[in-house]
């Protein structure tokens, strides 16, 4: 029996994050199709690119490090590496997927790592030391890849694409704060999204979104306090230290992958540079420096009807 389509929200968990898919469906079966699509694709990407599994494709690629012939990768991985190479180039080396050692050092060390430990980790970091010709990747011995900063956004985009192919054209995908909006409500109303305050509870702003990717990079949920100093989980792969610029950046872009890349790049710059970069980007964005909100659009107060809490967003899946 079919009725007028209704918005159905379904929660699941993937890549170590709470996730949600919302579609307009006229039956429970139809809604479950959407959930199955989302679950399947996110599991596929998680098992392929997780660096917590020894049997993942990423682990196999990792094991090729130090082998002179390198490894020829599949088309999907090649395209992801191409994107990562572009991020490396556009961030002048601040964003680097070969910073696996550095990420692990900051994640696992009980206190702020020593300068010598950081130097050691940096010596095994550097995309320019890897040889990449568009299909074959040759990593120097000991180098560790970390695709965590890309895969979750990419998964949100892929799920949105597959749902659209299944005929779902109203709804969104939310993978732990990395969102892709498939389309507005059937009557054309946009989704209302609330953006969280980086230091306090509650939203900073509400914004209507119909289509596209929304990603937030911030230090509010994943950070460490050491001797009263706050350290972001976003690391500058050139210096080896956490970033000190903006506190959080949300970006709306045609894809979640692009939104994530832009918000991360803005976080990696000094505050003023980051704001200039966002200003120039031509995208919709909202940034917070801990005290003040900056935005590409005049803020209309915090009115979120059907508000989505844009929780923590970015980076390495835990």
């Amino acid at each position, binding site marked *: 029996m079919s009725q007028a389509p209704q918005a159905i929200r379904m929660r699941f968990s993937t890549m170590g994050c709470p996730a949600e898919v919302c579609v307009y469906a006229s039956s429970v079966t139809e809604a479950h199709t959407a959930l199955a699509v989302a679950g399947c694709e996110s599991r596929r990407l998680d098992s392929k690119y997780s660096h917590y599994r020894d049997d993942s494709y990423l682990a196999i690629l990792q094991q090729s490090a130090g082998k002179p012939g390198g490894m020829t990768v599949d*088309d*999907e991985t*090649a*395209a*992801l590496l*191409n*994107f990562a*190479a*572009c*991020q490396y*180039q*556009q961030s002048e080396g601040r964003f680097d997927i070969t910073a696996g050692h550095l990420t692990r050092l900051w994640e696992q060390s009980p206190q702020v790592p020593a300068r010598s430990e950081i130097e050691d980790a940096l010596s095994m970091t550097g995309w320019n030391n890897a040889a990449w010709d568009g299909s074959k990747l040759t990593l120097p011995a000991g180098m560790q890849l970390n695709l965590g900063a890309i895969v979750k956004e*990419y998964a949100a*985009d*892929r799920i*949105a*694409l*597959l749902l*659209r192919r299944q005929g779902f054209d109203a709804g969104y995908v939310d993978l732990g704060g990395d969102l892709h909006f498939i389309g507005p409500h059937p009557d054309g109303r946009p989704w209302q999204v609330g953006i969280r305050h980086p230091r306090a509870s509650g939203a900073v702003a509400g914004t209507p979104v119909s*289509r*596209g990717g929304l990603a937030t990079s911030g230090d509010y949920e994943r950070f460490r306090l050491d001797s009263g100093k706050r350290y972001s989980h976003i690391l500058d792969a050139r210096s080896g230290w956490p970033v000190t610029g903006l506190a959080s950046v949300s970006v709306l*872009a*045609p*894809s979640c*992958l*692009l939104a994530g*890349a*832009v918000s991360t790049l803005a976080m990696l710059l000094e505050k003023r540079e980051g704001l*200039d*970069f966002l*200003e*120039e*980007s*031509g*995208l*919709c964005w909202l940034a917070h420096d801990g005290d003040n909100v900056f935005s590409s659009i005049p803020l209309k107060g915090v009115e979120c009807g059907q508000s989505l809490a844009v929780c923590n967003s970015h980076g390495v899946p835990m």
Partner: protein
Amino acid sequence: MKRPSPRIRALLASSLGLPGFQELLAAEAPEDSFEYQFTHYDEEPIPQASLQEGDPDRYKINSHQLRWVKNLDSSYTLTVGYLHEAMSGSSPWFVIPDSDGRALQVMSGATIREKRDQVDVSLGRRDGDYTHTLGLGYSTEDDYRARYASYSGKKELAKGLAAYSWGFSYSDDEINPTDAQEFARVVTASRDAWSASFGFSQVLNQNAVFQTGASLTRQTGFLSDPYKLALVNSFLLPDQRPDSRTLFAWTNQLRQYIPSTRAALQLDYRYFRDSWNIQAHTLSAAWVQPLATSWELTPSIRYHSQKAPDFYAPYFPVPPQGEYWSSDYRLATFGALSYRLNLAWRHERFKVSAGLEMYDSEGSLAISGTPQDTPGLVDFWRANLSFTVNP
């Protein structure tokens, strides 16, 4: 979405290789735009020393152009253009020698006032690697009317690193000179033109792109200027040119990025040759320099040199060998240098641009052919101001 910055476009372009991303991002329609440009064009008066008779003040033209680009859906784009221009001034009529044989210009007596309106409509369709565009246009003024149609196509190769383009156009023009009976001008005449073009563009490396292409045009009908006279063997006769003309142009364009200053160098060269035995070389260079966040300064220089057809002379002391003659200064052997400075400001959805050009033509600047004493050669300046908005 507003116009993304080059860094964003680089990231966007590099994500298109991901499986399904072209399909995913195709939902993002290309941007619409609305543009307006005002141009003031101003010719320098004929120097008194070269003027025999008539009004020395030459053309001043004010033009208003509008262009509206609307994406109907993800594959169809409609473009509508409108031009209105108002001109006033006098124009060179014929040339006579003084007692020493020096050429002197006779200008049209009364100031000419003219208006021209032009409307263009085109519909483009994107289909994978192909783009097809059909265009129609109409231009009208008191004494001239043109109707034209065009088709052009483009095919991208090698994932956008190269492209072929081709085009055809046809124009049907009708001439009804003013005061035809008073001045014994042709009362009504027509001409038409067929044109075909082909081009190929190629990304050379991450800093350079090159395009080469050629066009062939065939004009038939009344190709003379109904307002101009020539002094032939002491008779004043109407301008008389062949009634057909085949034109060939070969155009080359190079765009080179200069990383040290983040500038783009644009070099263009055109070789031209026609069946009237006119040949011309046109070379231009522009330096597009981005300044602070939203400013862009573009100095440019253009050089043009042409060799006159055999039937051109400022005046004809003895009758020409063939059956054609023209003393129109625009067919003379000359060279022209022009300098332009353009300043543009971009902010979010807006762009404002202003430019100034100085154009100077001289017989002695020609690189080939023998320049003759042509008092009508024109110098002008042109200023333009434009606004663009991407709503």
